[in-house]
């Protein structure tokens, strides 16, 4: 079976026979077609992605300061993490809404977007968090699905996203 709970096993590391980022052998089209159609041939095997530090030319300092406020009845808190971050651009942030972690992501231009709205970006973590609250509305709560260093399931080694809480 191609996709199963077993196929995406928790905490698995790259198994023997997987090639990481090395260049795989070229396949014929027929081989590929067989791979794509064959049940079980295409397992969703978790992998350790190449996750090396990147020296970005436009590395910037965080342009925002920690926040802790009530916005539309929600307690929103955010602070840069006190160690060298995972992001290519600078510090990562821990952000919560009513105590529940909100995953923010960083774009290459330095802007921020949230797991709740992948398609709108903001200049600061605070703006992205407020926008997430707008999208959340009065009754919803965040569910913590995100793998990461701060609670939540650590699903596999690839889960080193930039901003986590």
């Amino acid at each position, binding site marked *: *079976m*191609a*996709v199963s709970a077993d196929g*995406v096993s928790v905490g698995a590391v790259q198994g023997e026979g997987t*090639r*990481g*980022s090395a*260049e*795989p052998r*070229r*396949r014929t089209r*027929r081989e*590929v*077609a067989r*791979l*794509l*159609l064959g049940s079980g041939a*295409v397992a*969703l*095997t*978790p*992998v350790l*992605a190449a*996750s090396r*530090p*990147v*020296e*970005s030319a436009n590395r910037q300092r965080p342009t925002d300061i920690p926040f802790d406020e009530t916005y539309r009845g929600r307690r929103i808190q955010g602070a840069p993490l006190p160690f060298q971050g*995972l*992001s*290519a*651009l600078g510090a990562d942030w821990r952000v919560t809404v009513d105590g529940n972690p909100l*995953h923010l*992501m*960083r*774009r*290459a*231009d330095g*802007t921020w*977007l949230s*797991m*709740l*709205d*992948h*398609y*709108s970006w903001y200049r600061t973590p605070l703006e992205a968090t407020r926008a997430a609250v707008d*999208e959340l509305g009065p009754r*919803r*709560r*965040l*569910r913590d*699905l*995100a793998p990461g260093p701060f609670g939540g399931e650590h*699903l*596999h080694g*690839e889960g*080193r*996203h*930039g*901003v986590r809480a």
Partner: protein
Amino acid sequence: MVYVRKNVSRLTAGERRRFVGALLEVKRRGEYDEFVRLHIRHFRGDGERGLRAAHMTPSFLPWHRMLVLELENALRRVDDSVTVPYWDWTRNRSATSVPWTDDLLGGNGRRGDRQVMTGPFAYRNGRWPIRAGVTDDRFLTRDLGRARNPINLPTKADLDRALKDPVYDVSPWDSTVTKGFRNKMEGWGPDTNPWLNHNRVHRWVGGAMLGGGSVNDPVFWLVHAFVDLQWQRWQQRHRNHRYLPARPPGGSRGQDGRIVARHERLPPWDLTPDDLEDVSEIYRYA
């Protein structure tokens, strides 16, 4: 045997019933939610470290091609007459046309909590609980057209602007590039026009489709089948052009190890973009 993916507006009543039935069965088996989780895990920003295979990256197209194929394989294990239909949003543009009918994906979310109340995927039917969403909603949500500040679906002209670009993708291979078919199709636009093509469709559908849990809305597959069709059209129009980059770009622009070159492995699969450029032996579009 090459199978055919059809325009969802051309499916017969029986084909609609079997497509919906296969989706519900894949959900019942627990497989569907693994697709949702896989997509959530692979969403990362291009300002972050590490390999990005799925979004803001050249492999946006082959990654989603493979994801749709995996779902289609799961559907066909349930019912081998089923294929993933595509939604041509340049033609079926209203919130009441296909695929938003009761015999396909159901309609818009209601005011207030945006809960989808009609069709096979309405929560009250008991067969489509949301287990892997970004919020604690147990029901599917939509906000077709974005009620509070309406936007339109992208148009045929928007598609044509992407299709006429002969270059697949350009450095620095991320969401900031303004040239290349890939990002014109994926749709990270400038602040003045932030959502093009694919991204704009996610924004237009709203609700679950707006965030990390977008796969929870089965329209995800119809959208990505149509995106996949555009890649084929682009290939047919520009026969001398291929997936780029052909080789890892090196460290000069900071993208080394962060994107997937043509012959590099495309996680989580043991396949490369090169392997996925030609699927003519598997399926074709009608």
